[in-house]
């Protein structure tokens, strides 16, 4: 029961962050929100009895994807200046 309620809360957080990632005008905020979606998703995976998947999602989905996004964004901004 406790797990179910925590999944419900985590799901709501994930959905709110996903909406922020899509509709926010500032692209930096959008990218950070997208990375946080990955982080909370990894907790959902852990509750669904999949620790292997949770580790992969935490390291790749929220860590490396965000870093790659920021590098590309930085290059685009440098190009602009």
């Amino acid at each position, binding site marked *: 029961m406790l797990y179910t309620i925590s999944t419900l809360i985590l799901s709501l957080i994930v959905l709110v962050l996903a909406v922020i990632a899509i509709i926010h005008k500032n692209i930096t905020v959008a990218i950070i929100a997208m990375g946080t979606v990955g982080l909370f998703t990894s907790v959902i995976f852990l509750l669904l009895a999949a*620790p*292997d998947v949770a*580790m992969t999602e935490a390291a790749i989905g929220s*860590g*490396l994807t965000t870093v790659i996004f920021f*590098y*590309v964004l930085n*290059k685009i901004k*440098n190009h602009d*200046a």
Partner: protein
Amino acid sequence: MLKKGLILAILIGFSLMFIPLIQNFHGNDKLSDLAKYYTENAEHGAGAANIVTAIVITYRGLDTLGEVVILFLTASVIGFFLKISKSEKDETLRFSKLRKTSELLETATKALVPTIFMFGVYIFINGHLTPGGGFQGGAVIATGFVLMLLANPQFKVNHKVIEYIESLSGFSFAILGALGAIIGLGFLDNKILPLGTFGELLSAGIIPVIYSFIGLKVGAELSGIVETLSENQSEIEI
């Protein structure tokens, strides 16, 4: 207006597609037959305590080989794309100037990076006993690499070293797989080495060796991708 209507129609159509899936889904009460087979043969089939690892490396080893190839292709295509655009570097050179990294970040990096690398190696060596494995360990190693790159943007990596690590581990993975077929057990069979005691570090035949190679390869590839994407920046400041 027509466009918006079309988009709405696509979204509603997609939602309708999922409704039967959700209605007929009531959760599982027991394992499927395939999973049952893998679980019952955990000790004498693959010998790995982590059944996900047993499936990824042994039963579905060919898929993993394909996945590693796809990752390699991605890294090469990205490198190929961004190498060509280097001629445009000169015009960006004048404009931007990177902020100097803080003392705090540099000192913390010196302390943290060896620990992170060691943690990554720990994850992929223990892949057959605890959650984790080559892909997770490789990603953790790449994260340590990112930290190194953030603390010191001029940090130049020796491309040759990354290339050699990547090619050698990929080659060894394929050779170890082929060795199983040559001996007569089947491609990527893990019984080339003895299975050992179930649940110990040196067990499960060739699984820890292959997962270590995958970890090195994935770590080198992801570091290569990050390094290629950050390369222009490191040269701007000079």
